[in-house]
């Protein structure tokens, strides 16, 4: 064996994924830490709602619109249900549906977008024009129409919002996928005779992950807001299931009497979206490869 080519620097072993994540976390700014803690808090509340909440989700008490007291920490709503309990269960329902919807929209959008990027030609034309048509209709109004046709069950809610949202994901995935699909390692895989499943999953997807993960965070916020908006309009999550959007609507009258209770679910939505955006910003900055000039 002949000698290896000279290299100026000393060889360095690749660090494992865990240690890399640890160093990244250590360097994370305060805003990212704040976001991560808030999200973890929300997730804990959502998962353990059953044990945390003082009462049952749909348990009705005799007094409606009760003020804050020892018994009802945040008072009761228009039917006499405990607000704190509803708020806690609302986290589970609203976040759960938002996560499911975002995942579904990404599964559809990314796979179709990368297929279009890989094959181009007529497949790309058909998919892209279909997406253009869907995007040309204002999505909130379109969602209202579809929901009134198919009824506002949770499944149809998830599917309809996911479908409308996947158009944006499709566009992004196609755009970033196009840049990778022309790389020679994709050509190598094609020449090897690999099928589209391998090429998309192993060759393209790992290289377009950063923008897609960033988009996932943003999309999640939008889905969240869409669900809250639809619930506020009365076609979203149906009573008696607790969710933050309808909680705002149902108790909105209280504001007239100087009671801030209906603002709490609204604040919960705001805090979560801001936190998610903090984390996404940090992620974008960390993966963009941009260095601050010094």
């Amino acid at each position: 064996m002949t000698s290896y080519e000279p290299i100026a620097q000393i060889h360095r072993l690749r660090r494992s994924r865990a240690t890399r994540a640890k160093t990244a976390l250590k360097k994370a700014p305060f805003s990212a830490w704040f976001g991560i803690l808030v999200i973890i808090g929300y997730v804990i509340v959502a998962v353990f709602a059953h044990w945390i909440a003082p009462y049952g989700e749909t348990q009705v008490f005799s007094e409606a619109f009760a003020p804050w007291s020892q018994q009802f920490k945040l008072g009761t709503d228009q039917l006499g249900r405990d607000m704190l309990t509803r708020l806690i269960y609302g986290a589970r329902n609203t976040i759960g549906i938002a996560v499911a919807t975002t995942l579904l929209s990404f599964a559809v959008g990314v796979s179709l977008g990368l297929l279009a990027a890989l094959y181009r030609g007529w497949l790309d034309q058909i998919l892209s024009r279909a997406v253009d048509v869907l995007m040309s209709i204002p999505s909130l109004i379109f969602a209202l129409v579809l929901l009134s046709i198919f009824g506002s069950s949770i499944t149809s809610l998830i599917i309809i919002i996911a479908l409308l949202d996947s158009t944006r994901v499709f566009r992004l995935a196609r755009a970033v996928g196009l840049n990778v699909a022309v790389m020679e390692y994709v050509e190598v895989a094609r020449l090897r005779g690999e099928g589209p499943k391998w090429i998309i999953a192993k060759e393209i997807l790992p290289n377009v992950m950063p923008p897609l993960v960033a988009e996932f965070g943003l999309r999640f916020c939008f889905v969240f807001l869409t669900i809250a908006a639809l619930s506020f309009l009365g076609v979203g999550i149906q009573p008696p299931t607790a969710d933050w959007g309808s909680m705002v609507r149902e108790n909105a009258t209280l504001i007239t009497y100087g009671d801030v209770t209906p603002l709490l679910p609204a604040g919960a939505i705001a805090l979560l979206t801001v936190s998610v955006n903090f984390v996404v910003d940090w992620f974008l900055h960390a993966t963009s490869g941009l260095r601050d000039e010094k």
Partner: protein
Amino acid sequence: MKNSAPGLREKGKDLLQIRNLHVEGFSDERWHPIVRGVDLALKRGEVLGLIGESGAGKSTIGLAAMGYAKPGCRITQGSILFDGIDLLALSETGRRRLRGSRIAYVAQSAAASFNPAHRLLDQTVETVVAHGIASREKANRSAVDLYRRLQLPDPETIGFRYPHQVSGGQLQRAMTAMAMACRPDLIVFDEPTTALDVTTQVEVLASIRNIVEEFNTAAIYVTHDLAVVAQMADRIMVLRHGLTVEEADTRQMLASPSQEYTKTLWAVRKLAKPEVPADDYLLTIDKVTAAYGRAVQVLQDVSIKVPRGRTVAVVGESGSGKSTLARVVTGLLPPLSGSISFAGQALSKTLKTRPKEILRRIQMIYQMPDNALNPRQTVEEVIARPLEFYLGLKGAQRDRRIGELMHMVEMSETYLDRLPAELSGGQKQRVCIARALAADPELIICDEITSALDQIVQEEILKLLMRLQRELGMSYIFITHDIATVRAIADEIVVMHQGKVVEQGLKSEILTPPHAPYTERLLSSVPEMDPDWLTRLLASRRM
């Protein structure tokens, strides 16, 4: 116009003095040394060639001569005196005032350095106008004059074109005009011809040399091509790992390099392989015509035979259809007419209709290993896939074969868990070779696989390929524009020009005169290690 050989020109006073320069670069959360104490002095009107393999720090020194460090780099020690001004003590504003007006820079890729949205003329005069040296009309007139001196076609009107409307060589000359626009005292050329064909390179080299002489501009010429630097520089400085290895006058350096490392650099160009005539043909391309879309025919009636266990070098400048030929053979581009037969059987035209077994037997290696390796896959994953895909190897069998392949390409198994970004250029190309070998192919198409590499690494890769051919007996189609590479590896040569085969035959037949006119031009454009070569060539062409 005088055309003296370098080294004979009159030199002036000291212009640039760099002492004990240290530059560090930041990566993996640490500062690494890039330049580790280099001294450099340059007189007015003198051309200094910086030469070395990649990572030697030559470009970094070139930029430091302008008082500039790339983002992520910092100058930690040393002094840079330009015409008595200490660049490092100067404020950023002060340095900016010097850059462009008194020190200019010509980058490797002119295409990436021009703004595609503006006309050439506007970009040429931009610095002049911005520094307030001349009015726009005056600057425009002098730009046209520069275009003429740089022998650009239609100097009056070429400035009104956009960057994509001129060729690569013309763009590189336009960039030189841009650097010259303020009549700077010093120009830093960073590999200005590396990305060009040999035939274009000669023109650009001649233009640059003329204009530098005419205005008596001092220049730092960064390159890894020895023959090029021999034409351009008065003095040569050899760098390695951020340190000066040797510095001497061009003629002295070429005649008698004193350091061991310099001698190995000099030896690279002398690789040659005895040709072996063919006895059996593996691949026959018969009257193939191919086109992108319906507009331009890129290949016209191309017929080539590739013998078994031998190397066919396909040479020609860019746009001659060499790479398209590779795409036709691999099935990526179905030919319009003609036929290809492989090992006695007709090869179907499209990739989709070829059976896996045929795909396995034809493998391809690319020019840029950076693009040909998935940045998210480790070396092991890259090599393992063809083993699993074609041969169905698993577990211990697979691991043993991976070890064998790594051994074949002379790499240690400790590299298996590296990502491509953690390998050097030569190592990446070795991994690509190992991936091709994993399929156990009979034909490997090498598309300019050494042109992105340093000369020493090139030599290693070529030797590796020749050894593998001796041991495993595959055929190579070796696409290249470098005649030194052809001498080193080929048995037969195919010369292509504008989509047609100009000449083909055994290496000795093609390389010994008389040549076909195009072959003659191609061969004479290859720079030689003789400092008078360019002068002689230009004189002979002008006749």
